[in-house]
């Protein structure tokens, strides 16, 4: 099962090489833009799946993106602090928020849909606080990053290529952490916790520590995604980035691709971001709403018939076929 979830090293290196030369190919800049969005969302969704694959469905990943991005952008706009420095403060904020909330939730045994609802309320809370401090954050109108042209020291570039590599690096980091967690003792512990918390703690697994730990790691990577997104788009909005909608986008990508495998969240991010951009370009924003209706229907159907997601189901089917072949031989 484990080998099946991973592509052979050669193929992996080939894909990576393609990804590296992609921005230099004679293609329209627009494709680079789409790839950047895909990388960022894939990284964030993968980070979300660190928790989700063990049964912790978080609906506050949009809030983590927002906290990190707003901290770094506000520090830059008001104190001219470089995002390279501000991002650490933003990530610190995210880590503290995720740690405190995670600890409180896990210490008092909030699981399943109780946890989902709590995180949902946290998302709304963060969005409302951002809106409430409208004299600093711009409220519902959003917040623009002060443009400096190309200023590498301030994480601003006119070209898309540096952002492309930043997003790619983030995605690789996110996937790498997924693998690290998967290979570590934490994976076994978290899997046991996901099955039965009481049983897991009875054999000496520190449930609260493992769960809080993975929640903080997941929030940190998500926060980085928020910062890269903010610096790239140069505009933050509490409705599109922080509120329920944004957090649900991450969840939908995860479910669509499958949250149990390494590549699942990425498949979901590619499909959804790609389709979204295609519809936006081909049919304009009017159809965007209807595209979301279609996504909603697809997600409902997926949850009913393919709860493991597209990638997960595919892997399962391949696995079964191989097992059958092996049995025949």
């Amino acid at each position, binding site marked *: 099962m484990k080998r099946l979830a991973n592509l052979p090293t050669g193929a992996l290196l080939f894909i990576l090489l393609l990804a590296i030369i992609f921005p230099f190919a004679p293609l329209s800049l627009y494709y680079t833009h789409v790839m950047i969005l895909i990388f960022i969302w894939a990284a964030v969704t993968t980070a979300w799946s660190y928790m989700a694959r063990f*049964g912790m*469905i978080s609906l506050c990943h949009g809030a983590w993106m927002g906290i990190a991005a707003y901290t770094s952008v506000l520090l830059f706009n008001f104190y001219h602090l470089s995002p390279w420095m501000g991002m650490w403060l933003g990530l610190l904020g995210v880590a503290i928020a995720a740690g405190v909330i995670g600890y*409180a*939730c896990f210490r*008092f*045994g*909030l699981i*399943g*849909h*109780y946890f*989902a*609802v*709590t995180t*949902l*309320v*946290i998302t*709304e*809370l963060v969005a*409302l*606080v951002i*809106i*409430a401090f409208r004299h600093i954050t711009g409220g519902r109108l959003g917040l623009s990053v002060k443009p400096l042209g190309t200023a590498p020291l301030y994480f601003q570039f006119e070209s898309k290529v540096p952002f492309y590599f930043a997003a790619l690096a983030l995605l690789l980091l996110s996937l790498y952490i997924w693998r690290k967690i998967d290979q570590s003792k934490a994976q076994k512990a978290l899997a046991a916790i996901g099955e039965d*918390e*009481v049983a897991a703690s009875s054999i000496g697994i520190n449930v609260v520590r493992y769960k809080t730990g993975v929640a903080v790691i997941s929030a940190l990577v998500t926060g980085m995604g928020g910062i890269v997104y903010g610096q790239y788009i140069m505009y933050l909005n509490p409705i599109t980035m922080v509120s*329920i*909608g944004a957090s*649900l986008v991450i*969840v*939908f990508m995860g*479910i669509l691709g499958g949250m149990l495998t390494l590549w699942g969240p990425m498949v979901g991010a590619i499909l959804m971001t790609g389709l979204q951009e295609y519809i936006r370009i081909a049919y304009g924003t*009017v159809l965007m*709403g*209807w595209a*979301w*209706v279609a*996504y*909603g*229907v697809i*997600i*409902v159907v997926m*949850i*009913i018939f393919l*709860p493991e997601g597209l990638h997960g189901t595919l892997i399962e089917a391949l696995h079964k076929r191989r097992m059958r072949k092996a049995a025949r031989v």
Partner: protein
Amino acid sequence: MVLLNAIVSGILFGGSLALLAYGLNLCFGVVQVIHFFYGQCVMLGLYIIYSATVLWHIPLIVSCLIAVAAIIILNVVVQLAVVQPLLKAPMINQFLALASIMTILENSAMGIWGATYKGVPISLPVLTIGEIYIRTSNLIAFVGCLIVVGLLYLFLNKTYTGLAIRATAQDKEMASLTGMNPRIVYVITLALVGALAGVVAAFFVPIYPVHPHFGGPFTVMAFVIVILGGMGNLAGGFLAAFIIGVVTMVVSFLTIPEGGPIAVYLIFLVVIVFRPQGLLGVRERTG
């Protein structure tokens, strides 16, 4: 004196919230599913009433009935097509499926009616008692919602169908042993829940203009009330609705408009962490 005004409008607001939370609670108590698109049902009801009265010139009362019927149909369809196949699935799958329906409804509304505020122009007088001003529309909603809650209570306690619903909520296996079909009971419950959302929409017509994201805060608000009162605990939910109503209005009045919801969410976080069984609930979990 202005603070008193805020308290009075909070109590009036609490009436509508009580009805909202009653529906959510009923759904949770009987079908054991979190009705995640509840506020969106209200939003849809408001839009239907708007279309019927303003665009097609149907009398207001008739269009309210149309809206209630439409929301009932929507809920029954969702119950049969989505909730029924997922009844045995993990809770989180049901939750996500219903969250997707929320997305479907919000974006459909955006596609059909656009993103601007839509409202039915009704102007009702403002009552003055001493220095307290009361909008008649709020008063009508308050009284109306209380009457509907009362009727619902009678229905659940005095009629055969109501008793079947309560029996299923208490013990599904036992209820089906005595000849009640849980599937039919679930459908009836969802129809009832839909009717409640439709009624709330009807009472909201003179109070709020509607926009596609109108429902979200109400879903969360109703949810907070249900948790605060204890899930499945109808009396607790009733009490909590008024607490939340007053807190929202008073805090919003004392600070900024966003202050009310922020205070409500903070209360929710404290309650769900330290007293997940709710104010009047009985602690069941041992973990």
